[in-house]
């Protein structure tokens, strides 16, 4: 344990200096985007639109922050979007049946977390490659959600619950507060706790991590459980914002979430990345999509642009690795 502690004390210094440089580039990119959009359209630099961007970024961030931990271990969770679907629909049912938003929220979080644990068990215990295990899970969840909903829509939730998604506090949307909370909690967890540093160590070198006595299997399950639980959080906020649940809710969120993590500087090969980077990534992606909206680009272009951004981000990472 003390050995693991030594290693974890050493890694952040190496990561931080490099990460800082990368982060500054990304913040600059976000700033440039803002300037460009302010010049290009009058609608961008208005309080309403800025708050709108932040609220949209927060939804993406919930999903992407959990995914960041998975990608830090060198894995991938393709089931997060489908996870939102099932979690949201079950939460909606419970709210409707019991009238209690608290019970519904709990259901959503528990569902998301349980799905994550299943993913973690498949990856850690059954040794199925993460991308294919979670890809199988994606279709299992899709199937279950569609069967459960049978094409129905559940809508109309108590006003108190809807505040989570569409309410304001001191003029700022409530999801933005949640985002800041999870940003701080995630950053502290990843950078300042032993478990967080062990997650970096697993991604950087799984064999070495195992040899230093890190309980790799348990950490992997934990990471996938986190990712699932954050999908649960996203499902609740999504539900409260939309005020309705359908089978295909969250379906289109997987690719943007992966894009946000990769834009944020995380490496698919593990060990590199940060929750704050993902926050910046989510912001950049939302700015791009928001800008396309304001410039009246047909929304059909969004998956194409997101796909190209994903590939471009991975490619940049590959170039950086080759140099170092």
């Amino acid at each position: 344990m003390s050995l693991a502690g030594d290693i974890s004390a050493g890694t952040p210094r190496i990561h931080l200096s490099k990460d800082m440089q990368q982060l500054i580039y990304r913040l600059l990119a976000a700033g440039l985007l803002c300037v460009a959009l302010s010049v290009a359209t009058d609608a961008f630099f208005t309080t309403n639109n800025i708050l709108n961007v932040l609220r949209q970024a927060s939804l993406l961030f919930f999903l992407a922050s959990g995914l960041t931990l998975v990608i830090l271990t060198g894995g991938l969770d393709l089931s997060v979007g489908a996870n939102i679907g099932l979690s949201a629909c079950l939460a909606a049912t419970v709210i409707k049946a019991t009238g209690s938003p608290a019970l519904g929220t709990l259901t959503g979080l528990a569902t998301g977390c349980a799905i994550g644990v299943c993913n973690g068990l498949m990856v850690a215990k059954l040794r199925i490659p993460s991308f294919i295990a979670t890809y199988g899970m994606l279709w299992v969840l899709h199937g279950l959600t569609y069967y459960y909903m049978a094409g129905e829509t559940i809508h109309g939730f108590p006003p108190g619950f809807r505040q989570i998604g569409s309410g304001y506090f001191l003029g700022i949307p409530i999801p933005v507060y949640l985002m800041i909370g999870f940003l701080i909690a995630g950053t502290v967890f990843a950078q300042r706790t032993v478990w967080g540093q062990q997650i970096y160590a697993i991604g950087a070198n799984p064999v070495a991590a195992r040899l230093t006595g890190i309980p790799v299997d348990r950490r992997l399950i934990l990471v996938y459980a986190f990712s699932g639980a954050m999908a649960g959080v996203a499902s609740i906020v999504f539900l409260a914002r939309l005020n309705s649940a359908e089978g295909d809710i969250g379906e289109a969120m997987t690719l943007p979430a992966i894009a946000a993590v990769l834009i944020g500087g995380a490496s698919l090969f593990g060990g590199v990345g940060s929750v704050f980077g993902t926050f910046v990534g989510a912001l950049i992606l939302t700015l791009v999509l928001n800008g396309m909206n304001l410039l009246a680009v047909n929304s059909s272009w969004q998956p194409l642009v997101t796909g190209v951004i994903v590939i471009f981000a991975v490619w940049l990472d590959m170039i950086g690795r080759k140099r170092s």
Partner: protein
Amino acid sequence: MSDHALSSAPGSARARIPSVPGVAVALVGLSVLFAVASPGFLTAGNLSNILVQSVILLLLALPMTLIIMTEGLDLSMGAVLTLASLVLALIVVATQSLMLGLAGALCVGLAFGLTNGWLVASLGIPPFVATLGTLGAAQGLALIVSDGQSVVGIPRFVRLVYSGEVAGIPNPILIGAGFYALFHVLLYHTRFGTYICALGGNREALTLAGVKWKRLLISVYMLGGAMAGVAALLMTARMNAGHPTAAIGMEFDAIAAVALGGTSFEKGNGWIFGTLMGVLTVGVLRNGLNLMAVPSSVQVACIGVLVIFALFLDGMRSKKS
């Protein structure tokens, strides 16, 4: 010397066939189950129906086997098939020429295959992310070219490709059988096939032997794209329309068939006959569940569970050896 090594390699590829083909057990078991459970299953009409309906899936699963053997994956196949089908439909409706339409579909497939291959081989991007990105691109393009609408008014001669028959055998079965034979020969009786085994199993050896493996890998992905183009023709003929979400998710059925068929995701072990049985297993499962009035959403979930189970078995096998 090198010729001798190469000619013996197809034999060794065959020797890697799993000793107990679990897919055969699954196929027979499911067939017996459905034959007992629903009286409509074991009729000549229904069995030929299963074969005909499995052909589109087979056309995707064959190249997917090769791609997975190279330790790759192509998640974009369903979306590329959709886009190719739309392009084919648009061209055929505009020009009334099947050849031009098929050429358009093949071009779309080859272009995406080239892009996938280039991203994976030349840039070194992990295949599941590279093809997830191109999936988004193809899906977006499908929405853009069709403006979200179905393309209708497909001429009769296109529909005949799917519904016609030669000497009493439905066209799709002939097409499927032809491509199956082609892939069998390609994998087991050509140098290209031997190289594919090596791409997944031992890339180092290819480099040392002076093979330009990047070009080879790109061509494997292009083969996948081209087959998506061919499948697009059958799909359009079958649906009598081009639809912007027609084949979304079909790559999952293809990956499921390959995984069920015993092709491994990690060591370049592939088995083309296993893939055929995997395709039939998926076909039988979907058909049987249809007959029992199980909704297609549950079918997808069942296939998902089957895939995870197959991968688990694959992991156990590789642990033992």
